[in-house]
């Protein structure tokens, strides 16, 4: 009986310290993120009327905005498909290349820190406000200019060869610029794998390919899942995706101020959620198999 009380108090204490640690963050999250999200939900189902006194009069409009998006907005479906295609193609490319690059970095004896720093560099450089304005102004120019020498060589090849090559080339730049964080995470994961496991495997005569699929990949799986989620969110948050542009273009619509773009951004969130679900299903740990 005595033991039981003690256990309960310990557990309560544990919960209390946990809550105490969480409090500042919960308050912040609620005030600056969750409440605004809820508010935008409200806006997406209302007609808003802005009073001169500064107040906002909201009248319930039901699913009006959503219906309009699907039936009347000619831009929505193309923007949606465009964004889906962009994220669905880029995410696997970013993941595969970060795994490859992280493994290469892991095999390099000298200057690993230096190389890794360089791969993280674009993350540091691109995000500046002036820089993003600059890239936004002439995004295409930056890519073209970057590819200048090689581009011409590839372009001179027959079209069947050059088109996919150019596509990959354009995306190589994108991939490298957006995989800084992912490389760091996977490299940290790689460093945690015990070296004796590799040694045992190579003594048993496993090939490099087998070692990758039987040892490295299963160990990295949680890290890759984390990177997959991070990548999808990171790409979706780019202000230059077609859907994000559609959202910000519609913010100031005079007839349906804020409501319409609130509804759009909710749909966008839903799309991102579905994609995250797919990522999760593909990359989650397969427990049943390990039990065998």
């Amino acid at each position, binding site marked *: 009986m005595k033991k039981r009380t003690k256990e309960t108090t310990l557990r309560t204490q544990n919960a209390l310290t946990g809550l105490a640690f969480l409090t500042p963050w919960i308050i912040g999250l609620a*005030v600056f993120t969750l409440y605004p999200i809820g508010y935008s939900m409200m806006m997406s189902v209302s007609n808003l009327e802005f009073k001169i006194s500064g107040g906002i009069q909201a009248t319930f409009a039901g699913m009006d905005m959503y219906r309009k998006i699907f039936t009347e907005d000619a831009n929505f479906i193309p923007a949606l498909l465009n964004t889906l295609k962009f994220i669905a193609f880029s995410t696997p490319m970013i993941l595969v290349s970060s795994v490859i690059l992280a493994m290469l970095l892991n095999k390099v*004896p000298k200057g690993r820190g230096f190389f890794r720093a360089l791969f993280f*560099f674009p993350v*540091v450089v691109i995000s500046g406000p002036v820089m993003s*304005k*600059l890239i936004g102004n002439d995004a295409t120019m930056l890519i073209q200019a970057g590819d200048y020498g090689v581009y011409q060589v590839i372009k001179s090849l027959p079209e069947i060869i050059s088109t996919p090559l150019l596509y990959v080339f354009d995306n190589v730049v994108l991939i490298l*610029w957006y995989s800084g*964080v992912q490389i760091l995470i996977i490299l940290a994961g790689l460093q945690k794998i015990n070296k*004796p496991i590799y040694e045992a495997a190579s003594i048993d005569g496993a090939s490099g390919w087998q070692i990758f699929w039987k040892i490295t990949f299963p160990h990295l799986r949680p890290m890759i899942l984390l990177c997959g989620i991070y990548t999808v969110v990171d790409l979706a948050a780019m202000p230059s995706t077609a859907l994000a542009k559609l959202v910000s273009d519609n913010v100031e619509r005079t007839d349906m101020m804020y409501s319409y773009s609130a509804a759009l951004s909710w749909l966008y969130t839903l799309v991102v959620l579905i994609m995250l679900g797919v990522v999760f299903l593909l990359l989650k740990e397969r427990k049943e198999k390990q039990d065998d």
Partner: protein
Amino acid sequence: MAKYRGITVNPKRFERSQIKFYIILLPMIILALLPLIYIISTAFKPIEELFAYPPTFFVKNPTMANFRKLFGAAENTAFPMSLYLFNSIVATVAVVLLGCFISLMAAYALSKKRFKGRKSIFKANQLALMFVGSMLGIPRYLIIKGLGLTDTFWVNIIPLLIMPTGVFLLKQFIDDVPDSLIEASRIDGASEFRILMQIVYPIVKPAMATVAILFFQSAWNSTEASNMFINTEGFKTFAYYMNVLTSAGNGVAGRGMAAAASLIVVIPNIVLFIIMQSRVMDTMARSGIK
């Protein structure tokens, strides 16, 4: 932690067979550095080269004209550049320190403490992570106004302290810290706070450094608060100031100035990153946990 020789993972010595890795890595590095090269090159371009078509990537006759124009424009503003710089430094230091601390505490609690609603709180965080940021502007404005934060210095700091990505990354890393380690230190009489700072923090340092860099960027590059919430010129930030200076000269000619400004804004990011990255290195492996 002992290192094994003769295994290809984490080798200590350089061998000829490793040259192929460098050969693959080098072109990747060059591509990764493109944005920086581009910005440096554009910042030093004279006006004729900015107008050149097809646009050239590298600068041929480097000049300081863009910087001179930028500082010339700065002299015409009512407040000195140093004021904005000071504001930005104070706000950034506060955001990085407080933000990292709050995120670490939250991530630790979410990862290692058992209490009701833990899972739903983490789900709320994930929802916040996925929501498209641009639409939160209006409700956020109303809240900040309601809290009386408009036109105070605090608005540069407080709204930036909450970064769902940071908590998310940290939580995933703290999940890997073995419970036995925490239990052992608890039995040895360490307080919760001490466990967090002396056991958990050193282990998750690499993730911490990443999160710190993300916080640094969100604060140092922040123009939102100065744009929307602050009227008093004396509270605005350096990034905002640079943005205003460059927006005066728009178009092609302004591009050189914009590049010069973003080069100035980005230098602290680069310096900080170079300092941080050596700390991140191999901390995971050295922590002695398998």
